[in-house]
């Protein structure tokens, strides 16, 4: 009877001392610290289309001022020297005058940004957790362990960039 007590007590004391020493050595290790940290499970999301947001449509209007044809070029004249001779400037003939063929009138442009089909409102899909005998285990009941194959994906269907339509 006493031998049972001694052997058991020795094992318990040994386990506690060894466990404590081992724990002290490993507790500062990065891998140990990160071991039980919960990973943020990526929950599937559903994009709801029914919510209409009125403020999403934006009209961008831009007016551009017509460019004037008459350009005045200011040039600095060099200082006239005394010996300089002036030649008379002949008037330019009407045919030689440079006149633009067309006058371009830039139209008013309006750019409407249309929202994509999805309004960006996300709703978390609640997965129904099924009861199974396999769950009756000491293992973590975490999604990443319970359904390891079912890598949770974002169901966000391709979020289209806002289309720019020119009217």
């Amino acid at each position, binding site marked *: 009877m006493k031998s049972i007590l001694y052997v*058991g007590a020795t094992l318990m004391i*040994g*386990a*506690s001392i060894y466990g404590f020493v*081992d724990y002290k050595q490993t507790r500062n290790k990065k891998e140990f610290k990160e071991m039980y940290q*919960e990973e943020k499970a990526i929950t599937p999301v559903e994009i709801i289309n029914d919510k209409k947001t009125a403020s999403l449509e934006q009209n961008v209007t831009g007016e551009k001022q017509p460019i004037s044809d008459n350009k005045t070029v200011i040039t600095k004249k060099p200082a006239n020297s005394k010996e300089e001779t002036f030649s008379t400037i002949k008037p330019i003939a009407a045919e030689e005058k440079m006149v633009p063929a067309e006058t371009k009138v830039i139209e008013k442009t309006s750019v409407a940004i249309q929202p994509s089909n999805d309004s960006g409102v996300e709703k978390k899909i609640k997965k129904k957790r099924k009861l199974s*005998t396999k769950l009756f285990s000491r*293992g973590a009941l*975490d999604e990443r362990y319970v359904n390891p194959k079912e890598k949770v994906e974002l169901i966000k269907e391709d979020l289209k960039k806002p289309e720019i339509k020119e009217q």
Partner: protein
Amino acid sequence: MLFWVPVTGLSLLLVYNTLPYFSFNKDLSFIEERSFLFKSDFYNSCFYIHIFAGSLCILMALIQFSRYILKKSKAIHRISGKIYVSVVLFLGAPTGLYMSFFAKGSFWERALFLFMACFWFITTLYGLTTIHKRNIIAHKVWMMRSYAMAMTAVTFRLYHIIFYLLDWGHLENYELSLWLSVIGNMLFAEWIIYRQGKNYLKSFAT
């Protein structure tokens, strides 16, 4: 009967779910989560000893509390009792004590595991010493306490599943299940001891 049917069913389910671990496959969730600890040969061996001891204890305890078996053959009760006690004292409690230092949760959860290992060891030891002194009532009481501690493995899983289905966060679920299973089992054992003690005293009065 109403108590023992679910207890037996859940105990057998626990043992059944422990069997895959003996394939020494590392793809199991418990091992995957503690992959860093399982690099250590000592932890590895402690884990396998602990689950073997735990399964054996739970199976043996089912025989121990059967009045039918006790009446039919005391030898079965004695043999299974000896197996239970030796497995707890030499394998289950010491390995559990070592593993408690690396248990999941905060300092308090580790402390709880430490307490569980010590309490399991002491109650089983008292159960053994009392029967050696032919004190059957005390033996029953201490063995009930010991069994309550062993059954935390079952009740923990039960709470864990319930909270999981209720969509609780993993860590909160784990911690609450752990505390509930230990305190709940201890209180339940004490309530049964109190009730049986009351009935025992009443038998003297009539």
